[in-house]
């Protein structure tokens, strides 16, 4: 079982990710999240970034519709949802667009939490029950599950197109292609039932056991934990399901069919190692 070599780049390389992704993953403020916390369905908007409000809104809006349309529907039809607007400044049109997007996924807004007075006023005027929060105190809702193992996998049942960036504190499963220009960042594994041509980062919180699997591994760059590798173009143009993993010498790509039969994670080496195929012939 030979693994294909990929060019390794250490963390010192100038093009390596500047800061560890993990702060971005566990920080609920960087991306729109749809979650059930203590039984209550919530959509949590990201905190305001430094860019223009227009860009922020466009990105947030696309993330929301993307999650509603291509994610798994883990809610009951007609369920009530809370909107946690954080420090976003929403005008009535934007609030209405959020309501319409939720409505098309069979969700109704029950309550809006906002730290900006203006947003709270807008939401109240639109007829929602509103809770204004001080931006300085920590949010009253539990933001992220501390125990990552509880985080269920995120299913995305569509093509991930250029410009889409998905971050999830668990495993991400894509039923479709991951196109060039898109990015999947997961705290656990990334499994792609299609062609992987965008950027995938597995084990983004530093977990070296995590793998990236794809039916067609055509990524130009792979990231697992804090390792980064450039993948040479497939010479043959022929593809088979493959698994990228951390081996002692860095990220390697192996045929998927026999991967788990001939590899195991060695805690000492802190990497996947090949088990002797001969010892396996007995069973």
């Amino acid at each position, binding site marked *: 079982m030979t693994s294909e070599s990929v060019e390794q780049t250490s963390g010192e390389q100038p093009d390596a990710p500047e800061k560890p992704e993990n702060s971005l993953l566990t920080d609920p403020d960087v991306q729109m999240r749809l979650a059930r916390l203590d039984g209550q369905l919530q959509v949590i908007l990201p905190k305001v970034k430094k860019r223009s409000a227009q860009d922020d809104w466009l990105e947030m809006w*696309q993330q929301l519709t993307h999650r509603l349309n291509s994610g798994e529907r883990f809610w009951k039809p007609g369920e009530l949802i809370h909107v946690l607007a954080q420090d976003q400044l929403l005008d009535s049109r934007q609030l209405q667009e959020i309501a319409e997007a939720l409505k098309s996924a069979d969700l109704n807004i029950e309550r809006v939490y906002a730290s900006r007075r203006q947003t709270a006023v807008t939401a109240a005027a639109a007829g929602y029950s509103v809770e204004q929060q001080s931006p300085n105190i920590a949010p009253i809702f539990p933001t992220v599950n501390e125990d990552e193992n509880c985080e269920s996998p995120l299913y995305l049942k569509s093509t991930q*197109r*250029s410009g889409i960036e998905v971050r999830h504190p668990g495993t991400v499963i894509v039923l479709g292609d991951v196109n*060039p220009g898109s990015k999947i960042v997961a705290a656990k594994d990334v499994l792609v039932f299609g062609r992987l041509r965008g950027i995938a980062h597995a084990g983004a919180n530093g977990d070296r056991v995590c793998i990236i699997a794809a039916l067609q591994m055509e990524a130009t760059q792979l990231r697992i934990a804090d390792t980064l590798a450039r993948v040479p173009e497939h010479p043959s143009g022929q593809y088979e399901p493959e698994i990228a993993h951390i081996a002692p010498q860095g990220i390697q790509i192996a045929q998927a069919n026999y991967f788990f039969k001939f590899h195991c994670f060695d805690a000492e080496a802190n990497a996947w190692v090949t088990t002797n195929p001969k010892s396996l012939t007995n069973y």
Partner: protein
Amino acid sequence: MSRIIVITSGKGGVGKSTVTANLGTAIAQRGHQVALVDADFGLRNLDLLLGLENRVVYTAIEAIAGECRLEQALVKDKRQPGLVLLPAAQNRSKETVNPAQMRQLVSQLSQNYEYILIDCPAGIEMGFRNAIAPAQEAIVVTTPEVAAVRDADRAVGLLEANNIRIVNLVINRIKPEMVQMNDMMSVEDVLEILAVPLLGIIPDDERVIVASNRGEPLVLDEKLSLPAIAFNNIARRLEGDKVPFLDLMAAHNNLLNRIRRFFRS
């Protein structure tokens, strides 16, 4: 029920306005009432492509502001009785219009026109949002270049996010000789990434530029050129006709063979 179609791309300069002008003319030629909406506020040029510059009196901005009636702002095409253009203002920025106003404007137009084609500006900012707001379907134009396809993919994602589910693709400026040399993405390469239905392929052809400069859409030429046939085919496919795609590679080979034969004889 009229069809409201936005012509968009993400990347600039790939041929949105060219497609809008020629497709609009071709559909009108087939006997339909067509309104073209130039949504590229601040950079109008659809009037130039149609040779209507000197007929523009009012623009969409005045119509929205109520400074004129919508009918007054519509410019009748000089050749096609069924075709009108709603010009964009050249001197105002994109921020002067909002999506609700665009929806309102187009819904007014849809009472009198069967096809409304909206020429979208490049980019994915406010101008894009305005242009796609009234649309029920979209034609995404791309050239077979990596950067253009990447942006087209982004645009498709945003169209989907905005609930525009009917998205078709036009690949413009194909150069068969470059595809053959493996120097250019092929139609298949582009389709593999974008995965949306193909509506048409248009060859790269100098006559497109000449026609644009003259302000005479090339679908009106008496002797139809290859790109003109391509535009006509797109119009027919839009109406549901099954028209086989032009085999540009074969056309290219024929030309090569003809040249070879010429030199042999």
